[in-house]
């Protein structure tokens, strides 16, 4: 009778020991519910990031920021970049750089390098949008004293949404040491936003007036909020005065926002126009100058875009320059394909436009299927280099996206280069001679068949570099060309066949018209309306806006 009892006691004590140990262990690696008052050290906080609950993570992030530990900023920004992981076995939180399923890890709380590990053994510390906002704010608070002025400015702007008296005091302290005028203005705006809620009437009026020059959307929101709050209460002379001041400020802001909106719309139009110009200018040569109805033009764009993809595949570590390398490569490659098509098919069909149309349409199908078979039927990812992503912020109400900006410049350079080539070079002279009077040019000793081949190659090559530009804007897939072929014919016909200035004019007009119609009619109807206008226009002027005049035009 006694023995079993002893055993039970022994077992019990063992059991409790295990319980105690395990609770200690879990307490160490996976802290239980964390509340706002919990006192925790930096390394404990980092270790508890393994929790699955997002609201817990939010508290941890705030606490990490409050520790003002030297590694706080590193951890928070790595967390935002999705580079913070924990090891599946011992739950150690690490920062990992992953390449080819292998991760180079460092201890998150100490920064000590821990060598390489298989990616499979790691689990990511996930974040959601709410956490991203918390992180952005925390990072902003930590980087108000950054050495880079643009970082300091965006940190101040980040504060706009979350102003309170405490933050305002911090910002005022910053203001005393800040030298950069952009940062100073952002800090002042933030402080003014907070002053809108000040109990002192004069301060309110002062800040409303100060904010009337600011174009930040947060400022408008803050002013409108105050307006709503005031007008819902009983009116006093003081609140009347405030409402008037708000009204004046809002009007001032909105009128300048309206102007910038117009500028932005024109920019959108020009940028759409420059894309149209790029895709049409090659066709302006093959169709406009040579008179070949080239249905495979779209596929030349596609081949150019795929050249970019292949270049990026070959040079995975030089994405920054890949576009610059792609431009000449795509030009040469699609140019050669163009010469091949001209020599192989089109030269037998000169003077028979219907057959040319059918033959080139066939070629376009062959090229599409070739890409599907050789590469993939799926769209391919072409990355955008850093210098082409993001936007140039002129002011908070107007920013121009870099990729569009570069494409506008690029389109104009291509057009200028082409004009120089056609008007100033010997080759250009020959092209013009051949297109104006073939037999006379032949009599003068020009090898017309080679001029034809090179002209077609030139047109195709330019389509190729347009494809490089398109790869930065849209999907790179076998159907890329089909989406643009109609547009490019439209531009060339509208602008006037055989005239590069006409192509420029046509592209820009269509681009801007489209963008002005879109807000009223929607994207679907805008396209239709533009098409109808062109049809009506062609009825009036069958040769387009700038028709070639003279004897040569009648051929």
């Amino acid at each position, binding site marked *: 009778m006694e023995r079993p009892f002893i055993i039970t006691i022994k077992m019990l004590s063992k059991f409790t020991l295990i319980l105690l140990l395990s609770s200690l262990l879990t307490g160490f690696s996976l802290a239980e519910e964390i509340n706002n008052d919990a006192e925790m050290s930096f390394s404990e906080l980092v270790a508890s990031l393994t929790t699955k609950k997002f609201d817990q993570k939010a508290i941890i992030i705030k606490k990490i920021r409050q520790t003002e530990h030297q590694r706080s900023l590193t951890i928070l920004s790595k967390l935002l970049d999705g580079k913070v992981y924990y090891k599946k076995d011992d739950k150690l939180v690490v920062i990992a750089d992953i390449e080819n399923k292998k991760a180079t890890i460092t201890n998150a709380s100490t920064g000590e390098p821990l060598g390489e590990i298989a990616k499979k053994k790691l689990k990511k510390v996930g974040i959601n949008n709410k956490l991203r906002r918390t992180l952005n704010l925390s990072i902003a608070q930590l980087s108000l004293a950054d050495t880079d002025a643009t970082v300091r400015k965006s940190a101040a702007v980040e504060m706009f949404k979350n102003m309170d008296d405490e933050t305002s005091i911090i910002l005022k302290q910053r203001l005393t040491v800040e030298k950069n005028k952009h940062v100073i203005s952002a800090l002042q705006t933030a402080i003014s936003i907070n002053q809108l809620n000040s109990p002192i009437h004069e301060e309110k009026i002062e800040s409303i007036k100060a904010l009337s020059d600011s174009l930040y959307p947060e400022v408008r929101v803050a002013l409108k909020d105050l307006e709503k709050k005031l007008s819902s209460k009983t009116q006093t002379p003081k609140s009347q005065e405030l409402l008037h001041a708000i009204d004046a400020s809002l009007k001032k802001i909105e009128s300048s926002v309206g102007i910038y909106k117009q500028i932005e719309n024109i920019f959108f139009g020009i940028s759409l126009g420059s894309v149209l110009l790029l895709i049409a200018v090659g066709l302006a040569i093959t169709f406009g100058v040579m008179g070949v109805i080239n249905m495979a033009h779209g596929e030349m764009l596609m081949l150019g875009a795929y050249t970019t993809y292949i270049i990026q595949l070959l040079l995975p570590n030089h994405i920054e320059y890949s576009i610059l390398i792609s431009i000449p490569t795509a030009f040469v490659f699609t140019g050669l394909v163009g010469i091949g098509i001209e020599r192989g098919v089109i030269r037998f069909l000169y003077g028979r436009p219907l057959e040319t149309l059918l033959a080139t349409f066939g070629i376009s199908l062959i090229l599409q299927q070739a890409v599907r078979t050789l590469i993939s039927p799926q769209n391919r990812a072409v990355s955008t280099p850093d210098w082409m992503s993001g936007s140039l912020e002129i002011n908070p109400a107007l920013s121009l996206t870099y990729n569009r900006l570069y494409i506008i410049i690029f389109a104009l350079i291509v057009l200028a280069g082409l004009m120089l080539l056609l008007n100033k070079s010997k080759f250009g002279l020959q092209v013009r001679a051949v297109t104006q009077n073939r037999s006379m040019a032949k009599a003068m000793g020009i090898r017309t068949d080679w001029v034809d081949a090179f002209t077609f190659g030139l047109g195709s090559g330019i389509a190729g570099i347009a494809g490089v530009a398109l790869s930065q804007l849209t*999907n790179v897939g076998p159907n890329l060309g089909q989406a643009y072929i109609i547009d490019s014919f439209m531009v060339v016909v509208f602008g006037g066949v055989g005239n590069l200035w006409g192509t420029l004019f046509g592209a820009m007009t269509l681009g801007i018209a489209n963008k002005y119609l879109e807000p009223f009619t929607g994207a679907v109807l805008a396209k239709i309306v533009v098409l109808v206008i062109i049809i009506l226009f062609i009825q009036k002027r069958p040769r387009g806006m700038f028709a070639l005049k003279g004897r040569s035009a009648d051929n």
Partner: protein
Amino acid sequence: MKKLSLWSVLCVAMIAWSSSAFSDTIKVGVLHSLSGTMAISETTLKDTVLMMIEEQNKAGGLLGKQLEAVVVDPASDWPLFAEKMRELIEVHKVDVIFGCWTSVSRKSVLPVVEELNGLLFYPVQYEGEESSKNVFYTGAAPNQQAIPAVDYLMDGGVERWVLAGTDYVYPRTTNKILEAYLKLKGVDEKDIMINYTPFGHSDWQTIVSDIKQFGSAGKKTAVVSTINGDANVPFYKELGNQGMSAEDIPVVAFSVGEEELSGIDTAPLVGHLAAWNYFQNAESEENDKFIEAWQAFIGNEDRVTNDPMEATYIGFKMWAQAVTTAGTTEVDKVRPAMYGLEIPNLTGGTAVMNTNHHLSKPVLIGEIQDDGQFEIVWSTDGEVKGDAWTDYLPESALIVSDWADPAINCGNYNTETKKCSGQNY
């Protein structure tokens, strides 16, 4: 042409002969496009069915017989779907069919599968407003995808809504339902912006700028996107370039999944949302097994899994179990055995087949990560019952579908007039 038809007759005869020679197998028809525009998505589902058949055969088949796949290619050609369906049932005498992706292909096979009393499992999320006696819908109905996604955003404080879609049937129907739902929830007309764009739209500058302005009115704004496949990449790129981040204005999409994201640079998309019933990232033992089996079957460690694959998986498992219970593959006996069947789904719960031929499944919201996967940020507490007819359109709210209740036994029973509309689906 004559030569061709002679050949096809010969081929069919050969297949018919070979199939009659081994009649002790159970035949499973696979009706997914293997060529044409839809091949990208549908080939994956064909492979999923083949994998499931292989697994089932390894486990001893069904009713002591081996399963045999009959794969046909409807080539993304909608009328051809109907012809191939007829061929599967009449010539190959298949016992069940897994197939279709687009709504138009499903509508095209409906009359055939009903006339010949076949059994079709349809694995893709769709616009609802349908319930056929001969079809089991294992994808999501609008109340299992669109409505919970809106609820999630509403809980997050969103008050202004942009409904952006490609201009065709699915987005228009879904947006109609969503608009009615939002108004019911007290959202003001001024706070809803609806925008349609053509297929493959690539110039998003104005629209994104408009959304940005619409979103800067002080109320939290979200975009509910029914934008179709291809147009998504330039859309998200423009969002990134104009500095509209997911923290400011999140975009929740209904047709962007793991498969669509593979091969896209997802860095500018991080934080944007998608609503599905399954994500590859879901943590459950079944899911780990499924992913491992899939990657081994396809021989590629980087292949992803997605929601329609899970729907195919659930459909296949349910059918196999119903056949076992019924003891036969006869459609009229298998169908009643399907009702109330419970199968563990891949996200850690159970999927239940309802008498309206739609599943009860959990709804998940995921945020896009930079590795092309989704981080699950929210899920419904339990399973949501698929609703064939939406409750938020007045003309559909009265209609119910129930194929088990002898008093109704209809796919579109009007509860007010107490009548079945007579149309079969």
